[in-house]
């Protein structure tokens, strides 16, 4: 078995263990929608992966912008990580909304955390659309790298929004202002395991998406090469 397959197998084991613990071992909580609190083990890791993915996109974009480190690899990595980040951020919003209904009595509220998270999702959707815009690879790379860095500004705003505005969404369960951890026992263990499992899944998906981006880039280059050759041939025929 290849290292990639071993990693995938380990990721799946971690995810299944998370699922079993989250659904069968951890206790319900009255003030968190009884059993709906089990959505915590999806919602929090999805939010973490969104922040991580957009952080990787920002870092890769910065490395692409600096002339000394400029390499197509950074541009492709930024795109791959952003796409995976959008998937997880979208899931975070949907799962949060499902959890919100039995806990808060509403699917959606224009609360600071929810609003800044939705903005984050749409900012990176826009970034992905920008990556598909027609331009030379260099122009597109520069445009996207700058956009990624601007969009990243919303990550700390979204993260700190619960401390700054204290609206409906609860403050951090682990990393709050007083560093008062509000979770323990099987719940804390399951949450840590869920974060590890989702981080492994992020690593696998980004690797896959990066490979796909490399293949797409190669195809574009081959198509361009064929088009140039055909053009040269056509011009030669005209000249003769």
């Amino acid at each position: 078995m290849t290292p990639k397959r071993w990693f995938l197998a380990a990721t799946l084991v971690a995810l299944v263990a998370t699922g079993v613990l989250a659904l069968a071992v951890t206790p319900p909580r009255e003030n968190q929608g009884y059993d709906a609190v089990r959505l915590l083990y999806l919602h929090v890791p999805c939010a973490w992966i969104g922040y991580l993915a957009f952080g990787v996109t920002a870092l890769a974009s910065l490395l692409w912008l600096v002339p000394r480190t400029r390499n197509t690899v950074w541009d492709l990595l930024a795109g791959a990580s952003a796409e995976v980040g959008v998937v997880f951020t979208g899931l975070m919003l949907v799962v949060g909304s499902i959890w919100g209904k039995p806990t808060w009595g509403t699917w959606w509220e224009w609360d600071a955390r929810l609003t800044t998270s939705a903005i984050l999702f749409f900012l990176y959707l826009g970034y992905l659309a920008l990556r598909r815009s027609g331009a030379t690879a260099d122009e597109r790379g520069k445009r996207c790298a700058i956009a990624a860095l601007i969009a990243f500004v919303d990550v700390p705003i979204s993260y700190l929004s619960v401390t700054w505005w204290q609206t409906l969404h609860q403050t951090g369960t682990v990393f709050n202002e007083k560093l008062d951890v509000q979770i323990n026992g099987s719940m804390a263990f399951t949450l840590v395991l869920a974060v590890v499992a989702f981080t492994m899944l992020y690593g696998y998906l980004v690797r896959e998406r990066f490979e796909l981006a490399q293949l797409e880039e190669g195809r574009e280059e081959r198509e361009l090469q064929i088009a140039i050759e055909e053009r040269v041939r056509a011009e030669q025929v005209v000249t003769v």
Partner: protein
Amino acid sequence: MIAVSHNWNYVAAGYAITTATLVGYAVWVRVRIRRLRRNLPDENRA
């Protein structure tokens, strides 16, 4: 006696949507990789 809803329907919906989305995305990426690999010229095929 008041029946207490434990909200398992919300839990099921959340886990089902998450699983379907992540599996669907992983499969979609893998299928596209395979399709592009199949169309590679022989000398570039890994």
